[in-house]
């Protein structure tokens, strides 16, 4: 049933689905955008953390006497206390502040913490050894679908193999942290966060646990985050350092800045769990997949983690016999945080790589094999279409060859693919859209722009609704005192915020129309807003410019309210998408060095709002995928229990020369009726599996674990 809130029909969209410059682009390009790290408040103090050097132990003494004598020292607060058990190196013990950054570092260096050390374990890949260290617990043992024994009997070809990928860390360029200014009863927090609206309650709760502070009301906390420098799932909470920073501000009566150092950021503020597994997979001669069996294990720190959703995408429970066992490895490393599409990238590697190996075993072109089994997925038609489109983009027909490039010379070329899915259900959101008598329009909500384009998408929605242009709209987000909207995680933001904004804008426009209708002498229902005018559809000569229309408001400002979800608010969004990616790589078999020639990505997200920012999200996902497919991994030393590469030299990320050519196709028009669906997670899932499959195709053997470093590639070649 159509409602007035529905998205305009395709022919009526002048801005939705088109290319637009990012509205916050100039401010960022000028270096004027103020991030939390950039706040310099009058009289501000600088705080540093003191963290644990031991991976496991008990605090038996904290001596701050020397630190308190350091020049410029202003105060410290304990985060953990004598008697507390430390579970990972880098664990936060106290925060200390001083008048300058240099003095804060001096003071932090002068703190002495004494530990009673306890046995630690930081390794996860060798599950046998981890078991001997008593670090392994069963986490899952699920059997689904048709009888497994029968399925194996019916299989004409089976592949058994070992696959996996190590731990990576978020490495947000703006580290976690904040500036807190606690003045009187008002606590202002400039936080680098993905959850502006959630932080007040989080901080208030954390502070209220401290008896010396007493109950703090969430309403007294004001979070301000117009810009933030990367989160990727790691910045939802105030964290210990945020609470400590607030306490220091209260204690000293000054604003305090506490941003993590790079090594702290990598050790404790990020972390995507590993996954390793022995996978067995089987199919009939014609390529019909019949069974998938896995024993996987992984770590996400001391608490372990959930199990990956395997088999991934190809998981029809009526037709595919499946058994998944998972073991949890408990390690003394910084705890895992959500990373774009939690568990899915790992599941893609553990499914798409064995599938490609099975296609090779069957002597089938993987494109045909993946398409043939599309009925085992939740959206067969989407995937078949996307596989064909992506194959065309990468030149699969011309370039694909059977396993092992038979060409001369040390450089071998290969193609590989993977596919993925994600929900992206919109989060709850409330919005106020204001129309001023001077024609000004603002969109107001406590959301945040992580760099995905929220300023731009909301501008587009309001401008489209009012028949205005993007510069006519002011978007106010990044403050917790605005109407509440959800945290930005799980690809939920664009669906939630565009819906609440659309509804608020339509409601505001209705009010304006009723005012204009009177002055034009027409029915409000007869009015339309387009091209900077409000006019009668029945008689276009009855028309007012937007500004003249708004003047009719006199002194009144219209405030339109909108929310998500809204049962009567029309069909504006949905969840559940599919995507396909294909990689074209070269491998130097003498050095084991993999380079990217091209990656192609096809992605369905329902209705695209801002095409260019959508594409940017996919480009970014592919580049991050190149990073974890080829370069990045957190490396821990068992003897000392420390992370050896908490830096940006040996925690390797790709540069501009490492990414090859990237081509992105957003599916537009086909699924617009579903409404808006998030884009942050889906394209971040497949790159690793697609690249690994391309390498296998190039060199003729599987490199079992990611990242595909030269030593791993050479070892795979040698073992072949």
């Amino acid at each position, binding site marked *: 049933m159509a409602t007035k809130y529905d998205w305009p029909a395709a022919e009526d969209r002048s801005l939705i689905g088109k290319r637009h410059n990012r509205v916050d682009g100039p401010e*960022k*390009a000028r270096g004027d955008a103020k991030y939390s790290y950039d706040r310099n408040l009058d009289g*501000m103090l600088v705080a540093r953390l003191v963290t644990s050097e031991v991976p496991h132990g008990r605090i038996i003494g904290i001596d701050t006497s020397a630190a308190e004598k350091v020049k410029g020292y202003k105060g410290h607060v304990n985060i953990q206390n004598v008697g507390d058990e430390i579970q990972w190196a880098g664990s936060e013990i106290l925060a200390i502040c001083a008048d300058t950054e240099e003095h804060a570092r001096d003071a932090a260096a002068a703190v002495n913490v004494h530990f009673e050390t306890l046995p630690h374990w930081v390794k996860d890949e060798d599950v046998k050894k981890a078991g001997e260290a008593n670090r392994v617990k069963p986490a899952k043992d699920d059997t689904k679908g048709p009888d497994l024994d029968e399925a194996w009997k019916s299989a004409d070809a089976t592949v058994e193999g070992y696959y996996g990928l190590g731990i990576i860390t978020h490495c947000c360029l703006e580290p976690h942290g904040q500036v807190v200014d606690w003045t009187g009863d008002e606590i202002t927090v400039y936080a680098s966060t993905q959850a502006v609206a959630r932080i007040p309650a989080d901080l208030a709760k954390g502070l209220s646990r401290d008896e010396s502070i007493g109950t703090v009301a969430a309403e007294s906390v004001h979070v301000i985050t117009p810009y933030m*420098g990367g989160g990727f799932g790691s910045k939802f909470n105030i964290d210990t350092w945020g609470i400590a920073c607030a306490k220091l501000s209260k204690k000293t009566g000054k604003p305090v800045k506490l941003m993590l150092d*790079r090594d702290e950021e990598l050790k404790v503020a990020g972390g995507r769990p590993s996954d390793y597994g022995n996978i067995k997979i089987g199919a009939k001669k014609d390529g019909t997949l019949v069974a998938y069996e896995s024993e996987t294990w992984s770590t996400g720190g001391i608490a372990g983690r959930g199990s990956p959703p395997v088999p991934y995408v190809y998981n029809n429970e009526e037709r595919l016999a499946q058994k998944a066992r998972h073991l949890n490895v408990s390690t003394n490393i910084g705890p895992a945080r959500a990373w774009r599409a939690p568990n899915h990238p790992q599941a893609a590697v553990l499914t798409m790589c064995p599938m490609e190996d099975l296609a090779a075993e069957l002597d089938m072109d993987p494109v045909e094999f993946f398409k043939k089994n599309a009925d085992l997925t939740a959206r067969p038609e989407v995937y078949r279409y996307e596989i064909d489109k992506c194959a065309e983009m990468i030149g699969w027909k011309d370039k694909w060859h059977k396993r092992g490039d038979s060409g001369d010379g040390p450089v071998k070329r290969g193609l590989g693919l993977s596919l993925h899915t994600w929900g992206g259900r919109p989060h709850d959101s409330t919005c106020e859209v204001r129309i001023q008598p001077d024609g000004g329009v603002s969109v107001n909500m406590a959301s945040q722009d992580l760099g995905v384009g929220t300023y731009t998408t909301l501008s587009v929605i309001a401008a489209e609704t009012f028949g205005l242009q993007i510069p006519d709209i002011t978007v106010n987000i990044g403050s917790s005192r605005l109407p509440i909207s959800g945290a930005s995680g799980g690809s939920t933001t664009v669906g939630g915020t565009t819906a609440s904004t659309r509804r608020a804008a339509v409601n505001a426009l209705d009010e304006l129309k009723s005012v204009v209708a009177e002055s034009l002498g027409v029915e409000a229902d007869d009015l339309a807003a387009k091209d900077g005018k409000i006019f009668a559809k029945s008689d276009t000569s009855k028309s007012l410019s937007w500004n003249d229309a708004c003047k009719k408001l006199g002194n009144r400002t219209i405030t339109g309210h909108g929310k998500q979800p809204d049962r009567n608010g029309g069909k504006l969004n949905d969840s559940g998408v599919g995507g396909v990616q294909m990689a074209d790589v070269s491998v130097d078999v003498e050095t084991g060095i993999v380079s990217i020639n091209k990656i192609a990505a096809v992605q369905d997200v329902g209705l695209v709002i801002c095409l260019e920012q959508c594409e940017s999200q996919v480009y970014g996902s592919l580049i991050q995928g190149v990073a974890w497919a080829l370069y990045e991994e957190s490396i821990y030393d068992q003897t000392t229990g420390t992370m050896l590469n908490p830096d940006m030299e040996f925690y390797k990320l790709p540069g501009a020369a490492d990414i090859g050519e990237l081509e992105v196709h957003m599916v537009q028009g086909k699924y617009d009726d579903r409404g808006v669906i998030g884009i942050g997670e889906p394209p971040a899932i497949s790159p690793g599996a697609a690249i690994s499959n391309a390498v296998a195709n190039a060199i003729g053997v599987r490199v079992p674990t990611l990242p595909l470093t030269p030593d791993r590639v050479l070892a795979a070649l040698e073992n072949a």
Partner: protein
Amino acid sequence: MSSNKPHDGPGEGPRYGPRKGFSRRTFIEGVGIGAGAVGALGAADQARAATNEVVGPDPVSITLSINGKTHKLDVEPRVTLIDALRNMLDHTGAKKVCDRATCGACTVIVDGSPVYSCTMLAIEAEGRRIETIEGISSDDAMHPVQVQFVEHDAQQCGFCTPGLVMAGKAIADRNPRPSMADVESGLCGNICRCGTYVGVRKAVYEAARESA
């Protein structure tokens, strides 16, 4: 926190001279320096060089030339240029990310070359021409590199952007027709985490031609 603030001229804020016992730390006094060196050194530097004085560890009064303006400030010798810019002069465009001469977020241009400001002591930047992101555009017009960054959506979270813009400007300043390989080389000292390189490469390639 007055010692942490720049002061505009004599009489404002504390001034730190050489430490007591200065004369014992003077190795060669009154030695002239060659004309070539004079040209390369600022006035304060010449004075310091001519006396070979030991300064610090207490704050030292220095003068920095940033975007054509001179700034006087008192810095401990260990203060890096990035920290002086961000913490003392509120020039927060350049970002501190790796703080180890790897990621390029702190890139500024010194005497025409891109440098990592996290890895240069502020005291060593005295007498040199420092350009920061704040100085390359006017209120009315952005630098072509900045314009093209917006045109090609060469940014997401934007935290790496100022460093990449400055690295891009350094490319454009030196080469009006860089190849894509030249662009990639010129940007290789900068790392973006969101993954904006597709737009960044195009932006710098186009901007160099435009600003030629």
